[in-house]
């Protein structure tokens, strides 16, 4: 009897301790260990000169680890005054609570609140404070380009791109943060908290190895942070608009600036309802990245595209004058189409037509190209596409790729005469500033245009190429040069002491305000007698005049960049107009 009883016990102990021991070992670990993510710092983002655009500072996250719902709620209620928890917030947190998992209460608690909590630790059972890197953005000038991070959304969690991401992670939402999310993110590590039977945190665990994770990759961008800040400073305060500056040498992006801008730091750790309300109710929509998302009628700045296409097709010679001189307009198909100058420009060759922005010349150019070839070539250059910049959310250009476009959009078959509108940058044509900058970059190069890129080590993406001669390019540039030359419309506003700046103005008619067109200036600048070293495209919404509103911004942007590049001290008095107004002598000015 005794032997049987003791034997039965021995057998049972043998089963539990020897045969099933590994099961129970595992359970004893999970019993007492609570996994916690270790947040690896996100990669630092630098500009082309090594200035920091985005980095990390120590931040504090607060967790609560309790075994039951009631005790969790109790602790949350005690934390209420310290962490500004609302009833809704507490309720939503309670819904997120999962047994045996620390509940993340707040990812961004400031140091003073943390010190209070630390002092009264006994009063908050199950409270765990974790140091976690917090994203910091340097300045709002570059806000649209860098973007921002915030907690991953439910939708994102379900998308294949974020299949390996976990709830509560901070992910890039827009901009570079989004584009290079996977490289910047790094890998989260894991650490174990040891708790006792009552859920009291005993400490960080010794024994099981903790995984520190992998910090995100640092990224170096081609942006010039000082240049962007300079643009932010000179851009008119009250008007929305955009500036794109490219380096024609390799298509790298020197500056992207969208006005109005915002402080991306407000998104870190969750945007407050007040800030969200403020930013959303702003009629100028500060979150819109106008450089890549804004679509504007390109107006006269597109005349260079028409000219480029004509030269590429060989339908016009660089010095050839059109048969019909401009006397203020042109009859076509029983319809009279006027030039902007009622008295007319007379007979013009390409350069003169660009400088004068003569519609009559470009009508005839359009007729020579023909509608079908215009659509084909315009599409080839990508006016109906994205330019391929490494930013998310880039808009597709609006440009008809075939005649059916009119039927789809407007419900009628296009007549051949549509080409006349297209040739002067009107008709169904809307482009992003970055797309226009890419086109002008081709003219600053040899007719080819790679996709603009922001990441420094990005492999160049082949763009498109206009098959035009150097002589033709010279004539196109000559046309733009006359815009800023004496007697040119932008001469007074855009001429620079040290640099040869050439460009094309444009006035984009829009539905917002028919009296006040969007002001364009698409330009390039470089040393005298050299190739352009910077392409700058500026659009100021409702800026009325490309020459007086947009051109000075482009000129000052180019001047700032080139002066720094060539070691000439930067001066706030840059353009001819500024010199005259400041009473400075201008021996360099040409009149």
């Amino acid at each position, binding site marked *: *009897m*005794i*032997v049987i*009883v*003791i034997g*039965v*016990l*021995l057998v*049972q*102990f*043998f089963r*539990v*301790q*020897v045969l*099933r*021991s590994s*099961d*129970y*070992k595992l*359970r*004893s670990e999970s*019993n*007492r260990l609570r996994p916690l993510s270790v947040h690896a710092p996100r990669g630092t983002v630098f500009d082309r000169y090594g200035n920091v655009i985005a980095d990390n500072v120590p931040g504090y996250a607060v967790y609560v680890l309790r*075994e039951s719902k009631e005790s969790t709620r109790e602790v949350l209620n005690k934390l209420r005054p310290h962490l500004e928890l609302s009833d809704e917030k507490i309720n939503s947190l309670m819904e997120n609570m999962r047994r045996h998992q620390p509940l993340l209460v707040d990812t961004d608690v400031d140091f003073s609140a943390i010190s209070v909590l630390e002092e009264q630790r006994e009063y908050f059972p199950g409270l765990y404070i974790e140091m976690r890197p917090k994203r910091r953005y340097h300045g709002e000038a570059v806000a649209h380009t860098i973007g921002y991070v915030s907690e991953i959304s439910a939708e994102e969690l379900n998308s294949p791109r974020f299949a390996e991401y976990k709830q509560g992670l901070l992910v890039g939402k827009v901009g570079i943060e989004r584009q290079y999310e996977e490289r910047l993110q790094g890998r989260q590590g894991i650490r174990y908290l*040891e*708790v*006792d*039977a*009552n859920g*009291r945190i*005993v400490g960080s665990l010794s024994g099981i190895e903790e995984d520190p994770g992998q910090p995100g990759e640092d990224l170096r961008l081609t942006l010039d942070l000082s240049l962007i800040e300079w643009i932010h400073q000179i851009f008119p305060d009250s008007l929305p608009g955009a500036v794109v500056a490219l380096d024609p040498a390799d298509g790298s992006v020197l500056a992207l600036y969208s006005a109005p801008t915002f402080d991306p730091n407000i998104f870190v750790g969750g945007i407050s309802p007040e800030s969200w309300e403020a930013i959303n109710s702003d009629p100028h929509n500060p979150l819109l990245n106008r450089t890549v998302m804004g679509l504007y009628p390109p107006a006269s700045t597109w005349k260079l595209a028409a000219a480029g296409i004509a030269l590429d097709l060989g339908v016009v010679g660089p010095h050839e004058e059109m048969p019909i001189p401009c006397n203020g307009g042109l009859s076509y198909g029983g319809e009279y189409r006027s030039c902007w100058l009622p008295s007319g420009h007379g007979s013009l060759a390409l350069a003169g037509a660009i400088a004068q922005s003569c519609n009559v010349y470009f009508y005839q150019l359009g007729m020579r190209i023909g509608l079908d070839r215009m659509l084909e070539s315009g599409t080839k250059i990508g006016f109906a596409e994205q330019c391929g910049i490494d930013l998310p959310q880039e808009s597709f250009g609006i440009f008809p790729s075939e005649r059916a476009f009119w039927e789809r959009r407007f419900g009628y078959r296009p007549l051949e005469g549509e080409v006349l509108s297209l040739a002067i940058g009107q008709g169904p044509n809307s482009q992003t500033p970055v797309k226009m900058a890419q086109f002008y970059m081709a003219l600053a190069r040899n007719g080819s245009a790679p996709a603009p890129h922001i990441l420094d080590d990005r492999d160049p993406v082949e763009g498109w190429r206009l098959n035009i001669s150097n002589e033709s390019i010279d004539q196109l540039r000559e046309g733009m040069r006359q815009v800023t030359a004496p007697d040119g419309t932008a001469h007074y506003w855009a001429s620079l002491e040290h640099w040869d700046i050439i460009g094309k103005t444009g006035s984009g008619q829009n539905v917002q305000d028919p009296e006040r067109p969007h002001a364009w200036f698409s330009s390039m600048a470089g040393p005298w007698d050299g190739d352009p070293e910077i392409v700058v495209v500026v659009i100021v919404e409702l800026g009325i005049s490309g020459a007086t509103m947009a051109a000075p911004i482009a000129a000052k942007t180019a001047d700032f960049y080139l002066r720094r590049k060539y070691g000439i001290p930067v001066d706030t008095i840059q353009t001819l107009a500024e010199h005259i107004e400041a009473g400075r002598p201008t021996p360099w000015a040409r009149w």
Partner: protein
Amino acid sequence: MFRKIFAIWAGDSALVISVMLMTIFGIAMIYSAGVLNVPNPVTEGAWIRQSSWFVISIVVFTLVGCISVRWFEWAAFPLYGLSLILLFTTLLIGTGSGTASGVKSFIDLGIISFQPSEFAKLTTILALARYLATRPESPSTFRALITPSIIVGIPLGLVILQPDLGTALAFMGILFFTLYWAGAPIGLLAFLMSPAVALVLSYNNRIWALFFMIVLGSLYLYRYRLFLVESLAIVIANLAAGIIASPLWDSLAEYQQNRILVFLDPSVDPRGAGYHIIQSMVAIGSGGVRGKGFTDGTQKKLDFVPEQHTDFIFSVIGEELGFLGTGLALLFFCFILYRLVKIAEKSTDPFSGLVIFGILGSWLIHIFVNVGMTVGMVPVTGIPLPFVSYGGTFLLMSWIAVGITARVTYEE
């Protein structure tokens, strides 16, 4: 005088040394049970209090050894009566202890609190032995079992009223083993116990029905050795057990119901009543063959194991010393019980042998129920492990029992 004490000590030195080692081992484990990550003043100092009780126990053991077995035989009924009075008193003014604070099992004497049911176990053994020793023949009929059943039944009933199921089980062990030594046929004893088994099995009608069939079948095979009335009584008792099970179930305290339910399936309530069993099994299982090392049990340290210095001390042994520790401890117990059988066999008078078998029955039930519950074989009943669990009265009473056996050996 000293010679006599020495002789008592050396009477069955193997038993005394084994029991002493077991007590010291117990104190070591109680010490370990107090080593927690979040210190608890109650369990931390428990080993010191247990050590003092050990000293008292050794002294009392020696004194008991000086008392003739005849005196115990003479005093059996008065002591029995005293213990019944104490049990009654407990029901009136008793207090709980620790987590079992809803249970009235202690009498608070100011400095120390005292558990009359432990005392009652010993006196019941004595009374039962006294009664059976005076019978001219072995209790081979059912009728002969009635008086012994009543002797045990009264304190058992009082203990159930506390309510303390574990100790009640120990009383049944005492009855069974004493009657067995008195010569009652095993079959008869089985019939005697059958209503109790029927009561437990009635949680499931089919199992109960099956058991009832077995009882009927056995009765048929046994028909020539039982009176018809007796057979009828057994049948009726079994039927009654099945019928009253439900109202009896309802009369149980909720925590007792839970303990039984959870024993049947620990995962029913993993955070509530099943918690004890699960955590204890996790602790023991995670100890593996060699254990996590003395005082290094993580389950124990983090307070996952409930009542770890008292009822669940064996799970601390399992976690920290592994299968080697639990196996060795069980073999030690086996040896101690084996020594009791040997002493009983050698005893020259019926009273001594019966007392020793009563003690054996009580300890065996304690060991089986206590150790069994830590690995989920037996419902959690809150019954201590002899010599190892923390608890002054129980240690003292166990050592008094050792004293009596030592005296029995000495008198041989």
